[in-house]
């Protein structure tokens, strides 16, 4: 399609004008932004407030833990490992903050936070609400092993000691039972025939 000269010239000049004008408009906008304060949050120095229900690093308040293993079983990636040893009579483990009596020594409570997917599924089943999310999110490490968090209040020796104690107690109980059984076997059994007659 052939445009006539005048029309062509008009369009040409309009293009030129548009070109210059739009560049100037753009430049005015960027110039204004030159003096707008930055919106950047300078992260390590300034931190934004996190929302209430953020999911970050787990924390276990081991004083409240009754070692029920429910959190471990809820975890979809099996990153919580719990070992418990029963207490022996005479040992007082105290109660949890909501009044539950503790009966188990938690000899091992390891969370491999490197595996954790922050799903928070372990938090809900806990009967004492002692495993929960904190707002700590800066915990990178150079060694992967450092991400294995150990929450148990007992050190290895103590844990072993508890185990030995329990085993000893158990053995004693076995022995007592065996002794009792032996004693029972040795005795004549007068009541035994009487029992069916009760029915």
């Amino acid at each position, binding site marked *: 399609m052939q445009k006539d000269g005048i029309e062509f010239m008009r369009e040409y000049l309009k293009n030129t004008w548009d*070109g210059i004008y739009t560049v100037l408009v753009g430049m005015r906008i*960027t*110039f204004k932004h*030159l003096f707008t304060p*930055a919106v*950047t949050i*300078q992260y390590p120095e300034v931190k934004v407030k996190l929302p209430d229900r953020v999911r970050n690093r787990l924390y276990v308040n081991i004083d409240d833990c009754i070692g029920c293993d429910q959190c471990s079983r809820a975890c979809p990636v099996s990153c919580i490992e719990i070992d418990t040893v029963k207490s022996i009579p005479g040992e007082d483990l105290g109660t949890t903050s909501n009044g539950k009596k503790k009966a188990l020594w938690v000899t091992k409570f390891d969370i491999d936070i490197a595996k954790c997917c922050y799903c928070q599924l372990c938090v809900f089943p806990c009967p004492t609400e002692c495993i929960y999310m904190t707002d700590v999110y800066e915990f990178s490490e150079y060694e992967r092993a450092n991400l294995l968090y150990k929450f148990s209040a007992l050190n290895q020796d103590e844990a072993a000691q508890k185990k030995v104690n329990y085993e000893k107690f158990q053995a004693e109980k076995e022995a007592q039972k065996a002794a009792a059984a032996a004693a029972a076997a040795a005795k004549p059994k007068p009541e035994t025939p009487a029992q069916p007659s009760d029915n």
Partner: protein
Amino acid sequence: MYQFFFDLTGNVIISTLAVALVPLICILLVTLFGVWLERKVSAWMQDRVGPNRIGPYGIFQTVADFIKMLQKEDAVSSEIDGVLYNIAPVLVFAGSFAAFAVIPFAATIIGSEIEVGLFYMLAVSSFVVAGILMGGWSSNNKYSLLGSMRSAAQIVSYEIPTALVVLSMVMLTGTLSLTQISELQTSSFWHWNIFGGPGWELSKFLLIPFMVVGFIIIFISTLAEVNRTPFDIPEAESELVAGYFTEYCGMKYGMFMLAEYGNMFAVSLLVSVLFFGGYQSPVGYLGKTFGIEWLVSLEQFGWFFAKGWFFIFVQMWLRWTLPRLRVDQLMTLCWKYLIPYAVINLVIIGIISLL
């Protein structure tokens, strides 16, 4: 300036080196400061903060980068064309460095007072094209090659409007010497060429609009010649990685960077010589009032740098404002808009200067 150093040392070689050192140091400082300013300006325009860790306002960021660059291993791919590959960065840098030889930083500070400074500058800056083509070709990389092809096409095309505007300025001033052009626009901003040059005749006022047009044309076309956005298709990051210097690293890459900022500075200075009085102060000199000779030189140097930096700032401003042009748009702008306007402008300025 050569004479000054010659008188000082009495040795040809030492004085030559000393003269050559001045623009070299200028380019280095301009690059260091320019990269920093580029980052800061881009950050501010995008409402960010920009470098702020090393030194006050991150001013030493580029120094740190430079040191890092010097220490880098010179990794080369096995399929390159060795000789050309190694010559290319040197050539590109030499081209932009050589342009500084004729730029008068002050009435007394000039590398070489040749009569055809303007011509020399145009000629030597197209030297860069050879280097860019070499780099792109020898890298044996499609991005490099595409980048260098685009760059060559672009620089060669945009030299035409630049040359036309320069020609009209030569017609007006009647000289090719950059020092003389600066001298003509004596110490008041009303005498600058953008305001029609010295004198108070009618022709001066008639010239003003055409001078503005000429300034706009030469600013656009020099912007394209130094491959800056919106004319950065040779190194379009989003398409070509880094264009013709994709395959370079370490100090060779650094040479390309130096050349880029050197070129930016050179064209900014050229524009300010042609239209904004070069090293002339817009208001007069303290040194002349007090009769101190060296202070005048210092002031001129300062004014010249200030003007150069202003235009560099405008280049950055444009970079962070406008998107990149397509290749066809680029060629349309040059051949269908800039060149016709430049020719008409040339004719009109010619007629007016005859009056």
